[in-house]
């Protein structure tokens, strides 16, 4: 496999369920590292808590696995202490958009030069399937018995509210697109956020009636279309919205 050098196979197996899409994001990131020619000793991967929070430990680089929601400030501390490092945050929607939402708001405002890759599977998978900030309205989970009463968080809105920003939306069902988004994010001179729509079959999909992981992936392909306007990313579109203003 390409980009093997960036993955630490000695630490396998991962704790992820069969059919989980986290490994796909990990592979795309490793391939992005390789295609950009980044040196292993120049990358630090930081994670928070959750299924996606376990990603950091499987990279063949120095990595830090911190607290729930606090991956971004941990990464910002590392970046400001050593600006020559590529600091990549890989964590989930509950971690980055829920408990850590305040840090996303402010780190992006400060335009700290880190890349944040959000595994957005719309659920708290590790703890069994509780409602996350990105769970769609009306969806029943273990902690939303009558269905979620609220619309999901608007991550693009948070990021693009800053005059200078980089926001990419992609899915695990669009591998090449995802890898290219991550590559562009890593090359962006400032705070970059990649919103990867992913799947969780074990603690989410099967309760929604999906029979297999591939059915969930196909749903992503049906739900999302490619960007129609290069300057603006509409809802349910995949692509990049960025602005290099001051």
């Amino acid at each position, binding site marked *: 496999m390409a980009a093997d050098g960036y993955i630490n196979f000695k630490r396998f197996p991962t704790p992820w369920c069969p059919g989980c899409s986290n490994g796909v994001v990990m592979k795309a990131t490793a391939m992005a590292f390789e295609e950009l020619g980044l040196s292993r000793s120049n990358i*630090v991967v930081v994670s928070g808590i959750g299924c996606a929070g376990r990603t950091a430990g499987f990279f*063949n680089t120095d990595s830090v696995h911190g607290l729930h929601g606090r991956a971004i400030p941990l990464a910002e*501390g590392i970046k400001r202490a050593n600006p020559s490092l590529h600091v990549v945050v890989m964590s989930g929607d509950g971690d980055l958009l829920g408990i850590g939402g305040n840090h996303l708001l402010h780190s992006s405002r400060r335009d700290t030069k880190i890349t944040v890759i959000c595994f957005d599977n719309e659920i708290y998978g590790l703890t069994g399937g509780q409602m996350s900030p990105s769970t769609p309205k009306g969806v029943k989970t273990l902690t939303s018995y009558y269905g979620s009463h609220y619309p999901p968080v608007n991550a693009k809105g948070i990021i693009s509210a800053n005059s200078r920003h980089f926001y990419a939306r992609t899915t695990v069902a669009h591998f090449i697109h995802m890898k290219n988004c991550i590559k562009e994010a890593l090359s962006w001179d400032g705070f970059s956020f990649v919103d990867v729509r992913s799947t969780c079959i074990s603690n989410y999909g099967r309760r929604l009636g999906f029979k297999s992981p591939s059915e969930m992936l196909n749903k992503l392909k049906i739900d999302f279309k490619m960007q129609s306007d290069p300057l603006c990313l509409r809802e349910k579109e995949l692509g990049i919205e960025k602005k290099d203003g001051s």
Partner: protein
Amino acid sequence: MTKKLLQGNEAIAEGALAAGLGFFAAYPITPASEIMQHLSAQEGTIGYVHAEDEIAAMNMVLGASLAGCKSMTASSGPGISLKQEAIGLGHMAEIPVVIVNVMRVGPSTGMPTLPSQGDIMQVKYGSHGDNYPIAFYPNSVEECYRYTIEAFNAAEDAECPVFLLCDGFIAHLYEAIDMVRIRTKSRKRARKPLGSTEARHFTGLLSKDQMPATKDTKRYREWHRKVKAKVSKAARSYQFYEYQENEKSNTLIISYGIVSRMTNELKDKYSLFRPIRIFPLLDKQLINACSKHKNIICVEMNDGQYAREVQALIKRDVVSLPILGGNITHAELVKGIDKILRSKKHGR
């Protein structure tokens, strides 16, 4: 003449710079804000972030420390409560950082502009799980400078978060100090910073043989034993205290911080013990000093938090004299001690 008129908080900031501070992040809070204000002018020379909240500040200093910078944050009681989860991460992942806690009257917002010593227990037991923080408590502006450097050194030796305690009084007190004359060597960082080919994994989970996580109880006990021993070994090099024995007296007064400057006026009447490294407890020194006295009185600006610790250590009655936070007077101190010694149980 190299003397400078400095505030306690400014001396802490200067001490940190002298120790080789490379990164500082904090969130403003009375009465600790002046540390941050003073270091704000160093932005560019050191890494400096005015963080969005206390939690972010604590996590940033942990990250910066792993990336090779000597790092510090400063706060007061309510902010320290918010930092406690990340302090636990510092203990688990063995990350050296210095946390300044300038204490004010609590709980909650309490009387934020008035001094207190109410966080003694929070410093020792505030974070979750078993951990062994080291804490220093200076009682003058000069000591603020000196013990900030020592706190950094202890953090490097023990590879864990170290507290520098202060009260709103000392932090805002102005005294002339000679920083050139205070020679305290600062330790170099032993651990290699992040950014290596070794693929090291720093985690809040218990890890085993570089595997990210384990549920092995034996490994947990072995890790716990190792960390406990490492901290207590490191702490042995930092046994700072002041003991003034008065042979005419059978009463020992234990106090620290601003209160110790008040009790110092009574040195002709009683023996005095002032712990500077307040945690881990100075067991040998305290047991030795207490063994020579009939009455042990612990005076502090809280309801007996340190008195209970000392009592558990020496396995004898320690009378607590709480002079609760806010404005305190020497008269109430003298009156309180007299009342204790007049009571039936204790006598001269």
